[in-house]
């Protein structure tokens, strides 16, 4: 029986790896959440990470959910919104349960415009919000104030509809081409996307020029895009989510297909069990704080789903391609190499289309296999920013995914396929 099972796992994982390496994640549309998710309830807010008991929510998550609720006119203040969450008048859901992934703490409601990506090889789709640019006042860092609200309104009323037109005019933007170039330009593409954003904007501007959008809006859109050096991150999150949707539900497949933190629990999903969560207590990132007087007491445990890019082989897996990220968060070249080498120990393949010069032109490892994680005691490294306990960004660094998530998944796999 076990030989048969081993063969089934091997076949399933090979199929999944083929989807991963052959994927063509493409930015295909901009839609409001209620257009993308059938029967979306108007009183629902989707947040980062696995579902959370409101009693455990950290302040940045409360601000993000409350802010999204106020933006949707479900409440007048964040405090009122949070009381409505506790009373059940406002429903909460996880973006990762709805084919989405949250950039940091960014919460979404019915009218939030989101970028839709499609893996055109499988037809599966994923979504993520627009990255909010360089301001410190952004919902993604768990801040909600007048500036944030005005930008959210601009996204909904102006930028979102404009970008929908731009993407239509461009005929979609293939993200794989950008990733393949940018990885050799210093982007590990989780905490750094300087090259990727520039390459993306290079494609967007001609399309903007070709649309019938009023000149004033064109100007504002171009200025915003050129100010947002991390704009590509959220596009890529949608792209990686679209690829991972194609792996969910592959029987016997032991690969990681989703992960994220809500600032209290960290959750993972695996191909064989689709949208089932395997959770553990969420760790705080190790890294550098913006204020030298801050330390781990000021950092919120991992908050966001951007680590979906690691499930697709970038970020921590590709650390050696972006050593500046590792250096700026307290590490060095050796540490960057260690992260990529460790990822290779627990992955089943590599993206040979995304070659890293410093790695003798190998690609980053992809396809994190729960069997290898448990067997070797090596857990995936996710890059990411840190939220401050009072809201705002505290710093940036990396986190090792808790091994408990993988151990729980291994036991669930064994139970599903009658090993125990």
């Amino acid at each position, binding site marked *: 029986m*076990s030989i048969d*099972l*081993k063969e089934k*796992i*091997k076949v399933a*994982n090979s199929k999944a790896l083929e989807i991963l390496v052959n994927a063509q994640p493409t930015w295909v549309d901009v839609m409001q959440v209620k257009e993308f998710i059938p029967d979306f309830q108007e009183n629902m807010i989707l947040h980062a990470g696995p579902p959370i008991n409101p009693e455990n929510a950290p302040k940045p998550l409360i601000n993000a959910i409350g802010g999204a609720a106020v933006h949707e006119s479900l409440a007048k203040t964040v405090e009122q919104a949070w009381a409505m969450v506790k009373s059940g008048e406002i429903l909460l859901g996880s973006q990762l349960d709805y084919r989405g992934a949250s950039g940091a703490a960014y919460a979404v409601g019915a009218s939030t415009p989101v970028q839709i990506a499609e893996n055109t090889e499988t037809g599966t789709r994923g979504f993520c919000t627009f990255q909010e640019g360089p301001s410190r006042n952004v919902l993604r860092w768990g801040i909600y104030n007048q500036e944030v609200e005005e930008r959210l309104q601009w996204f909904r009323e102006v930028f979102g509809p404009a970008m929908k037109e731009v993407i239509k005019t461009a005929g979609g933007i293939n993200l794989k081409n950008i990733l393949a170039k940018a990885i050799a330009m210093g982007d590990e593409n989780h905490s750094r996307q300087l090259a990727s954003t520039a390459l993306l904007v290079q494609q967007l501007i001609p399309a903007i020029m070709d649309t019938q959008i009023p000149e004033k809006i064109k100007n504002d859109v171009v200025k915003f895009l050129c100010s947002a050096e991390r704009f590509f991150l959220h596009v890529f999150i949608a792209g990686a989510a679209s690829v991972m949707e194609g792996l969910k539900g592959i029987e016997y497949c*032991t690969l990681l297909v989703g992960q994220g933190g809500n600032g209290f629990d960290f959750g993972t999903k695996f191909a064989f069990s689709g949208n089932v969560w395997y959770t553990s207590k969420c760790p705080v990132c190790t890294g550098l704080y913006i204020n030298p007087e801050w330390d781990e007491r000021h950092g919120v445990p991992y908050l966001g789903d951007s680590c979906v890019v690691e499930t697709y082989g970038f970020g921590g897996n590709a650390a050696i391609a972006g050593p500046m990220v590792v250096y700026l968060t307290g590490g060095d070249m050796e540490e960057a190499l260690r992260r990529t080498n460790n990822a290779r120990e627990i992955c*089943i393949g590599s993206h040979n289309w995304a070659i890293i010069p410093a790695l003798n032109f190998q690609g980053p490892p992809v396809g994190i*296999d729960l*069997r*290898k994680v*448990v*067997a*070797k*005691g090596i857990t995936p490294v996710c890059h990411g920013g840190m939220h401050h306990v009072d809201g705002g960004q505290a710093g940036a660094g990396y986190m090792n995914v808790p091994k408990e998530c993988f*151990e729980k998944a*291994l*036991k669930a*796999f*064994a139970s599903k396929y009658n*090993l*125990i």
Partner: protein
Amino acid sequence: MKNELLIKNTARLFSEKLKVINVGLPHFAETLREQGIEVEQVDWKPIAEGDKDLAQLLESMGIDD
């Protein structure tokens, strides 16, 4: 005869320059390096970090290494 060989090899161990391969816990390698001894570190952990139940499940599933 066997004992003579053992004594001879043991004597060599203390009279020649040591070259050590350390398998597993890196602390042992670090301690030797601090004493100027050349050490090759081999990273190794027991499967599933010694958890027998998990190791048994992995045996049934294989890890394709």
